[in-house]
């Protein structure tokens, strides 16, 4: 391996000094993603990259990938860092490629209804741009303010609008990717990917940056809807909330988005902002489409709500909730840290799933909120979050919640989302005998495991000695299970929000 100083010189020669960082502070910023990790994790992984680089062109990304052949340093691509499974943090230092300088919107093709953007553009910026031209994106990831186009594609994200507009995978026409050998590949024909038998885009959807570095994406856009309206309904409890979401599917309604937010979410919101709604379980429904259809759907949904013991909230409350849809995890400010567990569960079992999530949260004595939204006629996202303080010894044990939630998702015939560095043990549970097919993909694209190696399929440690270089995935599962057991043994519930506790006791 070449020395770090040599690698630094080569990186500076490629990008210039202002786009290569190796200071302690910069490296620390990039040593974690949205998930809060206890410091003990540093015993296992070298989470601090050796260098942080900010390329601005596909050519520069390609040059950086080729450079790693000389320096033998691992490459970790990163977008907005909004993931929670460690996909965008290094495990053995190396070069962190922050893609956010590649944030240009290359152009909108109004005739063919596509927009081409660089991978570092955020979804919110892309959506705003497209909207200014009279179009809309079919789906926007739920953390779209910070989430980058490349990041969300790499994490196989779901989001706002997907129930009506289709999946994010189907919204991608093609990708420009720098492969591990430094060459540039277009993953599908630009003219019409779906009709092309050699469409490799799905391989990169959810690949967590392990097959190559996405530099540009061509996405479908659709004409801006004629009418849009947000509706909000208060439900007596979580289970009826889950049942109400299911009834929207069964009745054949086509909301743009429908999400269940439990009362605890609003308790946290209230602790932060006095103008937040009264704590109660709310289903927020966004309707978009032709004016007549929006009106017709509203009537149908109102009927379903009244049958499901729901009461309609004033339109200003619904409007306010919809406008604040991206500000979902403000509760993090109450506790220093927050952990989200994203899972896909069958719509048919949604009422049971939300109850189960609440049960796990309560058993582990955590403060947290349950959220769920519809993806398609079979699938819903169940994404509860819990508060934690990673500076306290008990903080890290909250990670056990994500493990338990993942197990629950499997029991419900669904699966957790995201493998990254922390949840690789779920891979075999997800794919069973097909796991070997999945591993073959990495072997074909990146046999030397240069890009984001030691993740998604296996868990590398920072050590390179035989026997210690990787953790068997069941070992990680065992560690998180121990964390969950320690949480249960903790005598008291977390007390981040006094109102939360009094509300529960009351």
């Amino acid at each position: 391996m070449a020395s770090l100083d040599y690698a630094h010189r080569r990186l500076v020669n490629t990008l210039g000094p202002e786009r290569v960082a190796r200071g302690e502070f910069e490296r620390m910023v990039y040593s974690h993603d949205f998930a809060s990790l206890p410091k003990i994790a540093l015993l296992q992984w070298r989470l601090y990259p050796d260098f942080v680089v900010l390329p601005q062109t596909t050519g520069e990304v390609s040059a950086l990938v080729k450079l790693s052949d000389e320096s033998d340093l691992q490459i970790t691509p990163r977008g907005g860092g909004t993931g929670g499974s460690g996909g965008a943090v290094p495990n053995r230092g190396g070069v962190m490629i922050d893609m956010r300088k590649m944030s240009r919107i290359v152009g909108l093709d109004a005739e063919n209804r596509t927009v081409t953007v660089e991978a570092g553009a955020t979804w919110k910026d892309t959506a705003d741009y497209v909207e200014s031209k009279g179009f809309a994106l079919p789906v926007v990831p739920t953390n779209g303010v910070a989430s980058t186009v490349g990041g969300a594609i790499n994490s196989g994200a779901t989001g706002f609008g997907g129930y009506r507009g289709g999946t994010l995978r189907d919204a991608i026409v093609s990708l420009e990717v720098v492969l591990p050998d430094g060459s540039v590949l277009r993953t599908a024909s630009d003219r019409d990917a779906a009709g092309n038998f050699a469409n490799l885009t799905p391989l990169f959807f959810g690949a967590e940056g392990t097959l190559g570095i996405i530099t540009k994406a061509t996405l479908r856009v659709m004409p801006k809807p004629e009418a849009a309206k947000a509706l909000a309904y208060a439900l007596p409890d979580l289970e009826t909330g889950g049942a109400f979401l299911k009834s929207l599917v069964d009745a054949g309604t086509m909301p743009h988005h429908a999400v269940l937010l439990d009362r605890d979410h609003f308790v946290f919101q209230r602790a932060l902002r006095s103008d937040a709604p009264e704590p109660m379980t709310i289903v927020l429904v966004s309707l978009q489409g032709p004016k007549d259809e929006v009106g017709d759907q509203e009537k149908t949904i109102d009927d379903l709500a009244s049958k499901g013991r729901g009461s309609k909230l004033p339109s200003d409350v619904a409007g306010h909730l919809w406008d604040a849809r991206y500000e979902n995890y403000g509760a993090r400010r109450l506790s220093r840290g927050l952990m989200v567990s994203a899972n896909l569960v069958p719509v048919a079992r949604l009422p049971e799933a939300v109850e189960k999530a609440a049960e796990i949260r309560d058993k582990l004595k955590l403060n947290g909120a349950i959220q769920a939204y519809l993806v398609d006629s079979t699938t819903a996202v169940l994404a509860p979050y819990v508060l934690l303080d990673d500076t306290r010894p008990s903080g890290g044990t909250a990670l056990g919640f994500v493990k338990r939630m993942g197990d629950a998702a499997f029991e419900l015939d669904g699966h957790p989302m995201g493998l990254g560095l922390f949840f690789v043990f779920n891979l075999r549970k997800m794919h069973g005998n097909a796991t070997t097919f999945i591993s073959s993909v990495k072997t074909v694209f990146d046999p030397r495991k240069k890009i984001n190696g030691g993740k998604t399929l296996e868990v590398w440690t920072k050590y390179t000695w035989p026997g210690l270089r990787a953790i068997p995935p069941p070992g990680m599962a065992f560690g998180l299970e121990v964390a969950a057991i320690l949480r249960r043994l903790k005598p008291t519930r977390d007390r981040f929000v006094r109102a939360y506790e009094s509300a529960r006791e009351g």
Partner: protein
Amino acid sequence: MGLLRDWHYIERAVEIPALSEMIREALIRALFVRDDRVLPKDLIGDLNRGPAVTVKVKDDAEVRKLVRVLNGQESTVSLGLSAEDYHYFRTRLGVGRTREFGLVGRPKTLLTYDWIVPEQRGVQLDFSSYAGIEFTEGAHRAIVQVGAMWKRLYDEALGNGHMAPFVPTVPLDFAIGDAFYGDAPFASYRGDFGSYVNGLRTISPYGHRARVGFEEVANNGTAYDLLHATGPLASEFFIPLSAAVRLDPKPAARKTLTYAFDDGAKTAAAFDKLTRSGQPITWVHVTDASAAKILRPAVPAEAFTVQVSIGGTATGLAAKEKALDALLAGFKSKAADVPNPFDVPADAYRKAAESVERSLFVGEVRLPARAFGDFAARLRAYGDQMAARTGLYASIRETGTVSVFPFFATPKDRTRAYDLSKGVNTIASKVPGAVFVSRLAHLWSEESHFRRRMDLLRRLKLEIDTAHVVQPLVAP
């Protein structure tokens, strides 16, 4: 499907010194039409070797056992054949010889044409008896065995409170498995068939049951999405046995509106307007006069007939109908009582499919909605020039893409199929934004990114199927 195998064969054939002088396209033509005068003897031998044995699959355990036999993990004795069949099986397959052979699934109905390079004396699987459909109480999905007919799924889904929104653009009597083993063109207004498949139950090249994707939920955030990446080539990577397909809930009321247009340009403008409206539609099916005569011989045919299927509440349907009337402005006449090709009794569907099947199809042309009229006019002119009556079936996506399946009233021979494919490719290349996506067009493509992708897929196939059991690649 066999595209990867055909592509690999051609790639390797052009490396043969005697053939390297021959331009790629001429070689493809010679292989496709079996022009034995220009092909070397070895290549003719490869093309003559068909599957030696056909096995009618009734249970997935039989497929697993066959794979294990081909892998040498089990003896043919374990197949449980009678002494006579056992002898036949071993003789036909040449078990014991040092030659590779594999398994290939037989499509029930092929829209276009068979593959170029057949399975080399291996085993052909016939799934016509593997045709179960299973619905889950309360969930809008079905597990459909590959031999189950699409029409049966469509009817049974409606009977169970669901709706299968994907319909075959060319209404032939397809099995669901034809989407993986053949070229069945299922699609809805909202997307291609792939977007309705949550997962596949398959047998791996090692004889294990392997589920690719999921059954009850979609596939997001679970590493590489092999299900959608392999898509129509899935049967070259593993042996698909059942598909978990996502259905829609059955709407309270459904209606098919039939609009007749007398002009291609007006039709194209209406399509463009419709796909920019955001109207939720189940499917849009289009026929020209020739196709309409085949499908509905009793109804007078207009230049273009557009059938739009909508669903919703009774009041919602009325509003939708009004909106559609405005969006499809320019139509000559409208009717609500013309039967659509899909909601007819199974016998009538089969009978119509038999008539449709007589024409020669060359594959799909995808084009922007606004270019539909231009393409239709060019196709008609081409038919006149070739002295072959032409026609088309088409479907529309909300993305603004029209999938057109041109057909020719001409005998189904491979020379004709090749020449007409070439012609359709030429027409598509002249229409802005259009692309011919037939199997032959893929073999012709020399675009560098496409070749790179095919090469990656080939390497992936070889990595997954190291045992060379699932439609093994053949080199000349």
